[in-house]
């Protein structure tokens, strides 16, 4: 009897994929999955990244860096190190973050020309990350606890959610709409709106790739609609589950980068 019921259940779920009965209906569950997919893939990872920053006049700037990340636990605190290699005036600059879910992140910037470990105050999460259109928060991930989510629409490809910040004073937008891929749970398009309902800023994923079983954003773009300026970010040499030791996420790595993990 038990065997039969299992068989029935299996066939039912098989059918359900056609009628979308498997679709998630709880906005928070979708966001949790999206957060996992976008920021917590595997237990750790490394990647090389570059950004091209294009202003309203079309002038370009470039930033190139290597990222190391380790999760203390899924959906929990994370350690991150960002080592800059280009342009030459930021070469050797290292950015260290301890992302904390229940309190402000700890952030440091190492400036090699001064041998200075500068601590960065936590309040400015929505400040440009090294001159790019990406904010610090876009790089390390906005804490889902900061917003209230509602599911607007579910279609063949996307869950469309609306997010309204709990504390509107802490952000420059009124709300944002995220289109989350139903299969991978990656947010593929996020549009930020002003209180006048005008689209001010958009994040678009341009390319993904499956690496070690994790669908990974390889190319994304943030556009500032007020003047058409934008930043594109591209990744390469993405690796997961490297077994990064805990102790490299420390002040030591700012002055003495862990070369073995940066190749």
């Amino acid at each position: 009897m038990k065997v039969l019921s299992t068989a029935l259940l299996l066939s039912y779920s098989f059918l359900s994929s056609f009628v979308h009965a498997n679709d998630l209906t709880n906005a928070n569950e979708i966001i949790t999955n999206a957060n996992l997919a976008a920021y917590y893939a595997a237990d750790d990872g490394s990647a090389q990244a570059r950004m091209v920053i294009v202003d309203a006049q079309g002038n370009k700037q470039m930033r190139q860096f290597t990222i190391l990340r380790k999760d203390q636990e899924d959906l929990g605190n994370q350690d991150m190190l960002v080592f800059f290699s280009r342009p030459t005036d930021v070469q050797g600059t290292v950015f260290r973050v301890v992302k904390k879910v229940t309190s402000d992140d700890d952030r440091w910037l190492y400036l090699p020309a001064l041998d200075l470990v500068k601590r960065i105050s936590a309040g400015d999460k929505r400040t440009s990350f090294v001159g790019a259109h990406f904010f610090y928060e876009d790089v390390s991930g906005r804490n889902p606890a900061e917003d209230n989510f509602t599911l607007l629409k579910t279609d063949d490809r996307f869950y469309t959610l609306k997010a309204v910040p709990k504390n509107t004073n802490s952000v420059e937008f009124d709300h944002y709409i995220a289109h989350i891929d139903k299969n991978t749970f990656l947010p593929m398009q996020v549009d930020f709106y002003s209180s006048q309902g005008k689209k001010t800023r958009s994040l678009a994923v341009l390319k993904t790739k499956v690496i070690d079983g994790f669908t990974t954003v390889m190319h994304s773009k943030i556009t500032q609609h007020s003047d058409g300026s934008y930043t594109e970010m591209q990744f390469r040499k993405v690796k997961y589950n490297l077994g990064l030791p805990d102790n490299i996420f420390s002040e030591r790595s700012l002055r003495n980068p862990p070369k073995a993990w940066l190749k």
Partner: protein
Amino acid sequence: MHKSAMSIVSIVFCIFVTCQSMASDIEKSEDDWSDDDWSEEVVSPWRFSGFAEAGYGYLLQSNIVQTNSPLSEITARFNLDYSAESFELVSKGELIYDDVLSNTFWKTRELHISFSPSNNTDIKLGRQILTWGTGDYIFLNDLFAKNWQSFFSGRDDQYLKAPSDSAKGTWYIGDYAIDLTWTPEFTPDIYLTGERFSFYSPQAQSIVAPADSFSVQKTKRAQWATRVSTNRNGVEYAFYGYKGFWPTPVGMTENKHQSQQLQAYFPKMNAWGASIRLPLAGGLFNVEYASYNSIEDNRGKSPTIANGQNRFLLGFEREVIKDLTASVQFYLEQTKHFDAFIAHSPIPKLAVDKNRQLLTLRLTYTALQQKLIYRVFTFYSPTDNDGYLKPSITYRYNDLWLFSAGANLFWGNEKHTFFGQHQQNSNVWFRIKAQF
């Protein structure tokens, strides 16, 4: 202009042209961005970079110094690094034409090798920049060499730190990091001498600009500094120790060559201190203490040797509105043995307050995707009734060109106080930099 100046101008011109062509290469490679994959880079252990920079400054008042331009120089910087599996070699040098000195010379900024002889040990040997402590333009436990001439003339902030030829070891034991630096030959600050800026002489009781005739008795003895630091849940604690000399010549001694005459020198000084830095109220809070023991004048009775001090600092920084960060500091400098100091001071009315106080405010506003940065830093001393305003604008046109302009404005009621003595040194400056 000097012949050597002409040659450096031509070198700098070549660098600019090279930069331009490199910039167009960057453009080209960016245009290939539609390609799915990056072209594989050739990974070389060598890394070369640098910049060319021209800077000019102008004194706003007539001054007794020879020049009315404290900054007038062209610099070509070359960085060459070599990265191996087991060590890292860093070299940074500058070819400078300095119009104030009417001279062209080479300056080695950094030349050091670093390696890790064991899992928990890092060693760095050679000419290097050393920094620690929590102050912003105020130094308590950071007794490493500073370049005050650069600071006052509007050179880039990195030049505030002067290099020293040192050995630095860092040991990581548990959650603690222990740093020990040894500078075999004491490296003093690059203090004001009178070439670019004038200053107050307590002996002459007037503003002086001795320049070449400012003779200081040098010391070749060693200097040690140590720090023990740890981070507990985002709160940073550090303890410091120092054995060496005052970083500026705050003592007077008999001139070895011309008796009867006094000569400035660096009295011995030991120090210890502590600091805490932590996130608080959406910003950062720091507190630091240092005790300076002027061991040649333990009781504060010698008028020719600086007294010991207690130094205390409180600071808070946070973003006020988007892209505007403010930081405030309160600094207290207490003269130890103040009664003895006054009793033995030749001119007590010119003596510094027992508790000299300083308030600072830094405002940083960034615009145009951080390409345009407005900064203003103010020092104000309620006890000395003087101050120092340091505004600047930096514009990063692209990854190649950087333009900046600013001012160093001093004010005060009297000519003998810390900032008041520099009133005639107030200046404006601008700089153009091309990076490659």
